[in-house]
């Protein structure tokens, strides 16, 4: 693009760019938010495949009445791990991947406020994910061996493979123990009388994941409040960053409840307490223990309901970024959108009892929580209205990213409406533990969160990798997912109303549920096919030789001002923000007026001093040093993650114990603790760079 001389503005000396390091060690010690975003994204996607496979097995089992692909025990394990994986290891980390990628770029920062803490979040997350999935890792071969043996026997009539599964179950550690109590782990199913070691894997795994989430949330709140580019007032902060900020506040206020709840659970299981059990068996007699299973339910849902918003608000943020771009209009009612996110988050803390309407808490609390639940429909409705109003009268185009987010808007309305139905206590009592509930939360979490995250992948792919995902395959991906999703989950409304309970391994032909179950399984296979299409698309895109300009979608926020993929330092000069939709303002409000400026040119913030009277703000330190200051890589976050892996792992595995006073400390845990303390001290005395 031709540069236009504007003599009254002095272009500052641009600092020298820093070269990006490569190799495995650079990934293990990285503190770069873009790399951490990739790590989160890839890990979450792998778990998406695992969790999806678990769901597919569930659907195959339910495909016909009296099916026996997986037995009842395995079925319980599959739905437990499917739920836990999709919530904690897919939607949350995938959202965090977007936080990491987008937020610093959107607010004009070089990195997050605490880059090493960011690395710490990832490695600790990975440690928790491993702890949670160790039982699955060892059980899956047995599951598949069993299925292969059944298929082999049925098709070829020879029982050659029949011995494989028992052999695997006997010889692989933990193979018979996978968490099987459901993702919300109600007591007394989690008590020692009714379960084994697998619950400890589950509880400690989620505990470690919570530490990672808390660390990340602290980091993002400080980043958004403190690292905004000059001129970016709070009401100029892009809406996705707002969603990140409020989600992070939800995390730091909600996760303590689950952490303490799991703390109690661990004491119940390993310390002989009875926080969650009303009775205990001593010498064969049932005696009162004083605890209460309801305590777990309250603590879990005080966390669990805000968690629902932790899962959906980042998705809402992505939708609010993508719809304006493909409507060629600024977001309708920006301020109201911000208030709506805040209102949803605030109300989200006052509705947890709607998960417990059937526990008999009495008319008054039930009525109060019912009313509070209905209130949430108002800010949510405001968001739906504003997205629609953004599109209204806009110059619409529908690339894959836009298709996915419009898919969210329509499907979230369906899920939201069935949500309002559940606010009505008598209806909820009828729907409780039926497939209607399963339909509802898949419409908001798959039809909502996952659709937006997939849309986000298509939208931000060029920014991360410098290549556009193929649109033809993308549209095929979308339509397969859209059809598959609705085919899978819409019939579940009918099944639920027809009385089919959730979490049942099988059903009789006489129940009359077989037809919609068969349809639902076909839908699930379509979703599986759509993921294959996406993987092919990714592979083709990586193989293709293409380059993408800084702003392929002509979007308005700062991340699109810098090259795709962004250089390691993000912004050579920290931009000065004067407007909410900065790039559109620079391009259309100012440039379009100039005679020799091309309408479709893209203005990089680097060139702002020449193009915009606002210019750039450049700190003196940068000019003096002639070099961009970046945080040093550090291996202490990784060490912390290793410590956080061995600390619970020692408790879970059989390994020698050291006697410390009256406590026996497992040697692996002691080692983990030592690594952790060393890492924390090393970190504290390491110069931040």
């Amino acid at each position, binding site marked *: 693009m031709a540069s236009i001389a504007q003599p009254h503005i002095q272009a500052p000396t641009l600092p020298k760019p820093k070269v990006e390091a490569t190799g495995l060690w650079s990934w293990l010690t990285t503190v770069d938010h873009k790399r951490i975003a990739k790590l989160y994204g890839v890990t979450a996607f792998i778990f998406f495949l695992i969790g999806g496979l678990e769901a597919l097995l569930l659907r195959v089992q339910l495909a016909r009445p009296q099916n026996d692909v997986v037995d009842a025990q395995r079925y319980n394990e599959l739905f437990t791990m499917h739920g836990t994986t999709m919530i904690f290891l897919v939607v949350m980390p995938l959202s965090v991947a977007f936080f990491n990628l987008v937020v610093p770029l959107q607010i004009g*920062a*070089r*990195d997050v*406020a*605490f*880059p*090493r803490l960011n690395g710490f979040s990832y490695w600790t997350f990975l440690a928790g994910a491993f702890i949670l999935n160790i039982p699955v890792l060892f059980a899956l071969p047995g599951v598949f061996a069993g299925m292969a043996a059944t298929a082999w026997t049925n098709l070829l009539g020879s029982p050659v493979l029949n011995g494989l599964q028992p052999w695997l179950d006997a010889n692989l550690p933990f193979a018979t123990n996978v968490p099987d109590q459901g993702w919300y782990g109600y007591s007394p199913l989690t008590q020692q009388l009714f379960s084994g070691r697998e619950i400890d894997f589950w509880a400690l795994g989620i505990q470690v994941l919570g530490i990672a989430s*808390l660390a990340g949330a*602290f*980091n993002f*709140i*400080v980043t958004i*409040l*403190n*690292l*905004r*580019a*000059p001129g*970016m007032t709070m009401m100029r902060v892009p809406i996705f960053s707002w969603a990140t900020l409020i989600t992070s506040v939800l995390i*730091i*206020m*909600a*996760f*303590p*409840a689950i*952490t*303490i*709840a799991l*703390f*109690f659970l661990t*004491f119940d299981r390993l*310390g*002989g*307490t*009875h*926080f969650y059990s009303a009775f205990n068996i001593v010498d064969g007699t049932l005696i*009162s*223990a*004083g*605890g*209460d299973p309801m*305590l777990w339910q309250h*603590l879990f849902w*005080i966390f669990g309901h805000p968690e629902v918003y932790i899962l959906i608000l980042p998705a809402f943020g992505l939708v609010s970024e993508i719809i304006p771009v493909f409507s060629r209009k600024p977001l309708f009612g920006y301020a109201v959108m911000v208030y709506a996110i805040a209102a949803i988050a605030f109300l989200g803390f006052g509705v947890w009892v709607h998960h417990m309407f059937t526990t008999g808490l009495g*008319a*008054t609390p039930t*009525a109060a929580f019912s009313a509070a639940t209905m209130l949430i429909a108002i800010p949510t409705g405001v968001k739906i209205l504003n997205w629609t109003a953004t599109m209204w009268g806009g110059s619409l185009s529908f690339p894959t990213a836009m298709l996915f987010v419009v898919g969210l808007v329509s499907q979230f309305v369906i899920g939201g409406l069935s949500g309002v139905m559940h606010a009505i206590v008598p209806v909820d009592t009828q729907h409780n533990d039926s497939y209607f509930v399963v339909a509802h939360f898949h419409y908001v979490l798959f039809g909502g969160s996952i659709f937006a995250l997939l849309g986000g992948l298509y939208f931000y792919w060029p920014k991360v990798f410098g290549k556009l995902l193929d649109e033809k395959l993308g549209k095929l991906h979308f339509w397969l997912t859209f059809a598959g999703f609705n085919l899978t989950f819409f019939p579940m409304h009918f099944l639920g109303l027809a009385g089919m309970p959730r979490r049942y391994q099988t059903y009789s032909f006489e129940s009359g549920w077989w037809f919609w179950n068969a349809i639902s399984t076909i839908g699930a296979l379509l979703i599986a096919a759509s993921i294959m299409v996406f993987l092919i698309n990714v592979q083709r895109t990586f193989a293709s030789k293409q380059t993408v300009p800084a702003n392929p979608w002509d979007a308005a926020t700062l991340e699109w001002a810098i090259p795709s993929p962004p250089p390691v330092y993000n912004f050579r000069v*920290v931009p000065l923000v004067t407007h909410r939709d900065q790039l559109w303002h620079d391009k259309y409000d100012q440039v379009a007026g100039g005679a020799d400026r091309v309408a479709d040119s893209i203005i990089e913030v680097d060139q702002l001093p020449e193009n915009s009277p606002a210019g750039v*703000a450049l*700190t003196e*330190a*940068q000019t003096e*040093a002639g070099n961009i*200051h970046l*945080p040093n890589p550090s291996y202490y976050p990784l060490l912390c993650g290793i410590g956080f892996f061995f600390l619970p792992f020692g408790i879970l595995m059989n390994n020698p114990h050291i006697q410390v006073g009256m406590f026996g400390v497992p040697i692996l845990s002691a080692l983990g603790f030592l690594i952790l303390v060393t890492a924390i*001290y090393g970190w*504290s005395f390491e110069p*931040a*760079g």
Partner: protein
Amino acid sequence: MATAIEVVTAHGAGAASHGGDDHSDHPPPSAGVNSRKMLMWLFLASDCMFFGTLIATYMTYRNRSIELQMPPYPNEIFDIPYTSVSAFVLLMSSLTMVLALSAIKRNDHRGLRVWISATALLGAIFVGGQFFEFTTFAREGLTLSSNIFGSSFYVLTGFHGTHVTIGVIWLLTLLFVSLRGGLSSEKALDVELAGLYWHFVDIVWIVIFTLVYLVPYANPPEGGAEAAPEALIQLMTLGQRLLATLPF
């Protein structure tokens, strides 16, 4: 107590002006508060919820062992004068913490070392007192698993004791750094952050001490069902009457 906190925050405003360590060349923090200090405040907000959950659980189970007649009961076990003394020791450590911060701001290294040692010592006395209290209780028959009172008491006070222990280790680390000459007045923020944490742990103890030790417990069933203070009973009756007027 509240005065001590206000002193710290008033001093804190001065130290907040320079940027976070991780981004020395970045523009000044957009929210006007140093990033590390903001991180500490956020952590404390979150820690409030940790303690809130524990305290709520304790309050739920407060009288349950008595109702179920599962001894030992809290009124028999607690030695309120003893715990009052250790509570006083912990509260005084907030004063020495304030003096330590004030010393480093005046570049008074000797003062810093004296007061930080005093704070750590007072904290250690508190933790030692708690250890002695726990062992005495255990000898009298109250263990983690003896009844629901023991479980919720030990987990709540133990969680707090762990906080104090971490605080003591933190203070000793600062003392070590200071003795090595690494703690100048520009690094007053390092002391201030430890101070924020320390004062928070003190305030939480005021709440725990009141709710766990001071508020009276129900008498065991044979001695009559209710022994709550008159004001509490009145408040609850009022609440019940209000609820009764609701149309559901």
